[in-house]
């Protein structure tokens, strides 16, 4: 038994740090590997088992953005800059639309009292429980009827139109804002609309940020829906489908490193947005959770 309190504390701290350190290394490893090997000079899938590349180069990033096809690949339709732009545009639009719709729905459910309020909330809950991919084929045929299949507009529609169903967290946040503020504003002559824009929104920065982040990330990671909607039209692909194409059997041996570079690049806009909004984010998640 160790008598000294100090020693005991140091020991237990050391043990905790070791465990955390090991977990951290395991967790960070894939990212480090991805970044290092996207910079590796010699091509191919793996450097015959080597963990650390011997020589570094930015060539793959340059090729990726210049759309240079590696020799012998015969690729004619792999154009990453276009995919990146597509995804960025879709992400921006669906981010704006879904953020607005989520916040407005939440506001309505939190502040307004109307007949079907409870029922609508229940229906939203139930609908939210169905896995999204069940309706994908139906969505595709609906879009086809509207002649929207194979367009970026269709993607924006799909990503943002159902967003209002995910109102729970932000409604929880709005519920924590005292109603007295609304009443005071009403006495001063503000309409419900003005209360939303001028009172509630400025006080809800954390949850706005949270909503913006989640809805911006969606289009970057979605694969199945985008694939169904875009079909064979490579010029409309998003990064997720495009990168998958790079490691399909057809292109794997020649495009592997560009794929690695592409995976790193995809993380950039998300990371930038995250860093910019990070300080509100943590606040947002916990604050909404109190009552949500």
């Amino acid at each position, binding site marked *: 038994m160790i008598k000294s309190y100090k020693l005991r504390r140091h020991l237990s701290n050391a043990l905790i740090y070791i465990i955390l350190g090991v977990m951290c290394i395991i967790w960070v490893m894939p990212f480090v590997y991805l970044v290092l090997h996207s910079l590796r000079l010699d091509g191919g899938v793996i450097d015959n088992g080597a963990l650390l590349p011997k020589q570094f180069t930015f060539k793959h990033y340059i090729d990726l953005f210049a759309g240079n096809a590696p020799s012998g690949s*015969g690729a004619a339709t792999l154009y990453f800059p276009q995919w990146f732009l597509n995804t960025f545009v879709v992400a921006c639009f669906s981010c704006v639309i879904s953020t607005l719709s989520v916040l407005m729905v939440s506001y309505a459910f939190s502040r307004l009292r109307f007949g079907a309020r*409870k029922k609508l909330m229940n229906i939203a809950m139930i609908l939210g429980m169905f896995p999204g991919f069940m*309706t994908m084929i*139906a969505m595709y045929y609906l879009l086809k009827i509207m002649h929207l299949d194979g367009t970026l507009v269709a993607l924006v529609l799909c990503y943002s139109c159902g967003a209002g169903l995910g109102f729970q967290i932000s409604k929880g946040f709005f519920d924590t804002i005292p109603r007295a503020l609304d009443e005071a504003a009403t006495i001063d002559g503000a309409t419900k609309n003005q209360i939303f824009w001028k009172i509630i929104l400025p006080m809800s920065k954390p949850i706005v940020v949270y909503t913006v982040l989640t809805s911006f990330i969606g289009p970057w990671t979605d694969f199945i829906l985008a694939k169904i909607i875009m079909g*064979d039209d490579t010029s409309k692909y998003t990064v997720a489908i495009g990168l998958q194409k790079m490691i399909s059997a057809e292109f794997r041996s020649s495009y592997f490193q560009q794929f690695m570079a592409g995976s790193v690049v995809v993380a950039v806009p998300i990371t930038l947005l995250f860093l910019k909004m990070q300080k509100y984010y943590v606040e947002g998640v916990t604050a909404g959770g109190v009552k949500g």
Partner: protein
Amino acid sequence: MKKVLAILLAGMLTATAFAGCGGGGNNNSGSKAADGSQTESKGDASAAAAVDPSWPDASLFGDEDNITLKVWAPDKAVDLVKTQVEAFKSHYSDKKFASIEVVAQGENDAATLIVNDPEKAADVFGFPSDQLNKLKDAQVLTQVAPALAAQVQAMNAEKTVTAATFDGQLLAFPETNDNGYYLVFDNSVVTADDAKTLEGVLAACKKAGKSFIMDAGNGYYSCIFAFTGGAEIDGFEADGTTQKFKEYDEATVVKTLMAFAQLMKDYKGTFVSQDPANISTGFKNGKVGAGIDGTWNSQPDKEALGDKFGAAKLPTIKVGSEDKQIISLFGYKYIGVNSHTKFPRSAQILGYYLAGQECQEQRAKQIGWGPSNQEALKAVADDAILQAVAAQAENAVPQVNVAGTFWTSMGTLGSEMYKDGWNPADEAATKKLFEKTIANVRDE
């Protein structure tokens, strides 16, 4: 009461969502049936017309005019197919072609995309043989018109035709006979003589201090262990899902597996199980002497080695006193005609032309696709890769009707044998492993 209402409402909402889905499906099958009957009657009508080997008679177009078609070809072939389509248009210059669009679409995705929405998919498309069943079940393939079928059967390698024939109906035009793997080697390390036996290849690589790459943990490659021993797959049982095997002698299979495992052990460090995509890199940096690689990597492999590039059919392996030829899995590529096409006759003729001798020869020479057409194959007699591939095709099991359970089970067989702790001399353990593999493949 309120609760009941809420549930009812929710139910209605979901019901509408599903109705859309069901509606789409119904429409599809309706139009499918209509198209099917249309193409059948067309076949009968044109059966009498004579066929020129490369250019079908223009009368086969029937009354179709102002033709709009979409063709899918993989990236590598797009430019070539475009020129072939131009040649096609100018040959039938008295027909009016509104547009024949060639879209780049990898073959590995073809079936998925067509089944998702056959109406938007290409009218004429390339696909590998393992998608034949899926396409057939979804009824998106048009039967090759009898007028053209006889010619197709006569000109193409027999295995490629048989694989695409169901109930006496040929469902697609054979396009290549090369979807498989073969032996690639650095001929400064492995001589053509060494390349005849696996022992020779490994010994030569070991001597030069280079490795031999084969993806032993991937069922696509590792099935050669069981196939070489005689446990070849033979389509499905009557239930249509369980993998059937040809009759084999278990003792022989086990002996063969032991021979493979023994080689892996004897040449530890030389025999390396890795993704074949590493072979070309290994050739470039001089670490690899030989490997079993797919035809889709031929170009990078050849570029990496230049003059030193060597290709051969898979070698033999010594089992007991006998040199056994290694049997591989081999697929073909086909050109199919979408049954939802608005111009079924034109699509057939275009498919026939694109899969014909002239086009196969051009693809063989320009992008290295191994022809299924026997005349086209003769025209590339000096191409070492294509000849090696064609030779391997003779020693292979066709990649059609492969159960989903096949890949991982065979992969496990290979990776178990490659493992450090595996004892190649342990007959009982090998027998057990093999029996387990077969049971897993058959999902028993």
